[in-house]
Structure formats: C-alpha cells, structure tokens
C-alpha cells in the first residue's frame, strides 16, 4: 500500500436501505397520526363525523393550508416569512377597495390583490437576499409596515365584500367539496408537482440542503430564493382573497397572527426549519392535524379562547416528539 489516509473522515455509514426507509416511515407516521386523531375525534364526539362538520374542517383548513404552502417553500430554502398575515390584509384591502370604491370588475380586482402580494414577497426577497438582512428581522419589518399600509387603505375601518364571486367562493361547492377546499387542494397538487418535478423545485431543495454545494454546482441561488419569497407573498394574497370571501368584510385585523398558524402547520408537517427538508404534502397533513384539533375542541365545548394555548403546545409537542423519535433512531 503506497498511500494511506491519515484517518477516514467519517465512520462507516448507515445501511442505505434503513435511512431511506426512515423517510417513508416518517411520512407514514404523520399520516397515521392524522388518521388516529380523525378516528379518535370521530368516536368521542358525536358531531365530528357529521358531513357538515367535515366540510367545515376542510374550509377551515384552506386559508392556513394555502399560507402553509408558501411558508413551506420559503422555509425549504432556509428562510422564513413572517409577513404573510399582513399580506392577507393588504391584498384583500386592495381588492375590496377596487371593488367597493372604484367599481372594478372582480377578476382584475383579484388580479391586483395578487400582484400586490407578489410585490411584498419581492420586497422581502430583496431585503433578505440582496440587502442581506436576516429573514426574521426583515419580514418582521414588512409585517409592521404592510399591516399599516393595509389599514391606511381601508382607513382603519371595515369594507364589506359583497361581490357575488366572493359570496360564491365562500359558499359554493363542487361535487360536495367547498370551492375553498378545492382551491387549496389544487394549489397543493400544483406545488407538490412544482417541488418534485421542476428544476425550480430541485434547486429549492439543493439550496436549503447545502447552499455552498448548490452554488458550486452552478445553481442560481439568488433568483431561486427571491422567487420563493415572491411565491409566498402571492399565496398569502390568495389566502387574503379567501379570507375576504369567508368573513365577507376586510377589517384592520384581517390575517393578524396567521403567520404563526402557517409556521405551526409547516412545523407539524415535520419540515426542518433550517431548510432542505420538508414537503408540501406533509404541510397539508400538518394543517389537518392543526385544524382537526381546534375543531374538536370547539365541538367539545372548549371555548375559542383556549385554542391559541392549545396551538402553541401542539407546535412544541410536535417538535419535541420529532426530536425524541430522531434520537431513538
């Protein structure tokens, strides 16, 4: 032997099959948790399984679920977007104002709302990736400023959204499924494909997994990361439209605190907060857990004011559980 390494840099590896099996198991375990909760809630509450309630859950899921998609993408590239709750307000305020005061047709009004959302995302992306401000701080700044902008637009009062299109979105169904749920599910399918089957999706995982290696492989980091923030803003605007439709009114506190619900859904779905690991499908499961628990509590007569406490502990519990499962491995 002419040459010997001083020391190998790593210990013998895990058996590949096991490591691969692990990911599958972990997804599976989230599904199992969802099903178990579903059955448990159904069996212990006589109203949980009522079709009306189940559809209700789907509807309740849709707004957080859509925010969760954007949050997943941003978290996957190693960032975070705290401004989405404020984007919900600003985008719905723009649309409501165009409808209400300027008599713009609903479709262009919605388009304007969506563009505003994407623009806020662009600002976030530039602040974080070009100016180099930490994502937590930068999006906290836009959280404050954007909420203020939205409140100025609606002059800190309430604007009713009475357009029939919005009423339909809130109440109509397609083959028993509420339209809102359909919109959410379609978006999930689209983004599952985007992340899994497109070049952009592959880059997202590469950047979150190892930005240095991604850069050395010629991945256009800046473009991909900014686009992630833009998508988050855009999806937040979609959630804003749905919020306006369900509530029927845009008020100064629309969307407040929703960013935390979205993060909670992503975390419950098991994504890694430092990026590179996570899937939108699992965020959907996270949203389901989150919504079912809150729904069950309401059905059981737990007042709405306890729900927030439960949400917080739910997030902590999920993270802790994951940590211990990982250690056990």
């Amino acid at each position, binding site marked *: 032997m002419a040459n010997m390494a001083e020391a190998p840099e790593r210990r013998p590896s895990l058996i590949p099959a096991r490591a691969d099996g692990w990911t599958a198991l972990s997804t599976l375990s989230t599904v199992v948790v969802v099903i178990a909760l579903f059955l448990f809630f159904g069996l212990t509450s006589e109203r949980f399984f009522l079709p009306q309630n189940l559809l209700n859950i789907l509807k309740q899921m849709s707004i957080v679920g859509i925010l969760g998609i954007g949050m997943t993408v941003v978290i996957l590239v190693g960032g975070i977007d705290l401004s989405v709750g404020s984007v919900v307000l600003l985008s719905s305020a723009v649309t409501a104002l165009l409808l209400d005061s300027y008599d713009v047709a609903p479709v262009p009004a919605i388009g304007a709302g969506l563009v505003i959302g994407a623009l806020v995302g662009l600002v976030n992306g530039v602040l974080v990736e*070009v100016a180099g401000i930490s994502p937590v701080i930068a999006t906290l700044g836009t959280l404050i400023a954007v909420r203020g902008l939205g409140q100025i637009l609606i002059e800190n009062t309430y604007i009713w959204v009475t357009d029939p299109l919005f009423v339909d979105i809130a109440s109509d169904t397609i083959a028993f499924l509420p339209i809102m749920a359909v919109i959410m599910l379609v978006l999930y399918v689209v983004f599952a494909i985007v992340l899994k089957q497109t070049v952009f999706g592959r880059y997202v995982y590469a950047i979150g997994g190892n930005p240095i290696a991604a850069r050395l492989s010629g991945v256009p980091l800046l473009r991909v990361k900014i686009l992630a923030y833009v998508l988050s803003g855009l999806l937040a605007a979609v959630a804003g439209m749905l919020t306006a439709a369900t509530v029927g009114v845009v008020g100064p506190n629309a969307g407040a605190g929703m960013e935390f619900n979205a993060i909670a859904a992503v975390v419950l779905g098991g994504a890694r907060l430092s990026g590179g690991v996570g899937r939108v499908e699992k965020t959907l499961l996270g949203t389901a857990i989150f919504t079912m628990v809150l729904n069950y509590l309401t059905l059981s007569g737990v007042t709405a004011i306890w729900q927030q406490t439960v949400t*917080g502990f739910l997030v902590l519990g999920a993270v802790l559980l994951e940590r211990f499962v990982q250690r056990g491995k």
Partner: protein
Amino acid sequence: MSDAMTQPPTPSLTRQDAGRFLGDYGLLVILVLLVLIFNAANPTFLSVANITKMLEQNAPLFIVAVGMTFAIISRNIDLSPGSMIALVGVVMGMIFASTGSILLALLGGFAASILIYVVNGILIAKIGINPLIVTLAAWIWARGLAVSLTGGDSIVIRDPFITFMNNAKIWEIKPALVLIVLAFALGWFLLNRTRLGRYTYAMGGDERATIQAGVDVVFYKILMFAMLGFFTAVGAVITISRLGAAAPDAAYGLELDAIVAVIIGGNPFQGGEGNLRKTLLGALFIAILNNGLSNLGMIDAYFNVYKGLAIIAALLFGLVSRRLLEGKGGDDELLDPVGVSWVEPSGSV
C-alpha cells in the same frame, strides 16, 4: 513582515472611519433629527414631563430589550416577551385576587416567569430545538393561556404598591424610570463583568470553540434564559402597575419592538458582538417614534407604516455602515453564497 503581500487586506482608512462613524453615531444623528422634527410639530415634546412620560410609557420595552440583547448576542432569539408579560401579569393578578397579598403575587409572578423561561432554555440548550420555534410556541400559548385564564377580562389590582408605582415621584422621577436605569445597570454588569456575559459573547461568536474551551454552554444558556425571565417579570410588574390591572392583551407586539430596538441600535443579528449602549439608543429610537407619532395624533395605521419604514431604513443604514467598515467580503465569502451568484455571467464563450 517580509513583504507587503502578507499584510491583511484593510479597507481604506477613510472608508473605515466613515463606516465606524455611521455605525456609532448614525442612529444618534437620526435620533436628534427625529426629536427636532417632533419638537417642531409639538413644542412640549422636549419638556421634562413629556420625556419622563415617554420613558415611563415605554419602560417595559426598555427592560425587555436588555434581556433581548443577551439573547441576540448569544445567537438566540426570544419571540415570547410580549405574551409572557401578559401571562405573568395575569398570574400576578390571579394570585392577588385570591390571596390579597401583593408580595405573594409578585413572588409567584417572578417564579412563574423564570420557570417558563428555564423550561424554554432547556428545550433550546439541552434538547436542541431551534429557539425560534420554542419562543414562537411560547408567543402563541402564553398569550392564549393569559386570555383563557381570565376569560379575556382584565383583573383589577388595587393595592398601595400599585399606587406607589404610579404616583410616587421625586422631582419627575417615577419608579418605572428607576427600574429602567437599574435594568440597564444590572444588564451592563452581567454582560461585562461576569462569566454569564462573557459566555454570552463567546457562544454567539463561536459555540464550538467555546465548548472546546471547557465552558458548560448548556448551563449558561439556560441561566441566560432564566435571566430573560427575570427581566420579563419586571416588565410585567410595570405593565400591571400602569394599567392598575392584569390585562391578557397587554404588551401585544412588544417582542417586535424589543428585537428591533436591539438590531436598530447596531447590534448584529448574527450575534457574537454588541452592547447595551446600542440597545439603549435603539430603544430610545422606538420610544421616541411611539411617543412622537402618537403625539401627532397619528392613527395606528400610519403609525405602523412609518414605524415599519423607519425600521427598514435604519436596518439598511446599519448595513451600509457595516459594509463600509468591513470592506468587501474576505474568505467568508464562500460561506455567504449569495454574494457571488448575484453577478451573472458576462464573459461566456
């Protein structure tokens, strides 16, 4: 040195000086401008009464910002102080309501606050969960618990202690002002004179090297969070005193103000360095903004926009001064992958 090539790359002195000046005095200049503007709009702005009122109103912010400085220097974060102040206030209010003893209420509140922070510290330091998640969860559940425990209503506290906190004054100095001074003094002492402070810097600078040097990083991180719990409890005492009641919706958004105060003062978010002088300036900035804007009779909405814009501007400003100070990136550039990929190819074959 044998030849000039081995000299470390130093940006030109003038540029560095400019950067240092901006970093050290830039915010001060902005502060003075802000004061002048507000004073022009409202001549009573600079009166002693208004200044003490401003400080007193923002006392919880100042005190929480002291703790936040530790969290950020050590490369952690605390999103929970706003919710925790509400919860701790409610705990104090409930104990007072059932025992009638303000002393027990204060003790219970401090104990609860420190205990919760220690648990969070354990989750972060020992179990290794991201501080963002842990304190985010606390942000959610602590507020929720505060609301749930009271059913959303405030608990009125009538006690000579509260009266004392609100009314006692020597000249224009009220207890809240004294507490601000004490908090900064205590924070300064801990940060600069004790192991806790030294390791706060060391953990934020290079945690691996700190562990290698034999520092029990887990213990000191938990200790640091316990201290944050203490400061938060002080903030809660001031908050319930000012309101004369424990309100579950108190101190909403305080965490944002506190984080922003620390960062805007010029303490880098990535930790390892920073000081309380910068935090003091940053907190003053927020306090003046809060007070000045509301004096102008500005509605919350405009208030938020100006505040958000001012914050982003000040952040960018700090960034510019730091860039000037450091010159273009050195060997770290590989670790900051964004820098280079920004440039698109121009010389392709």
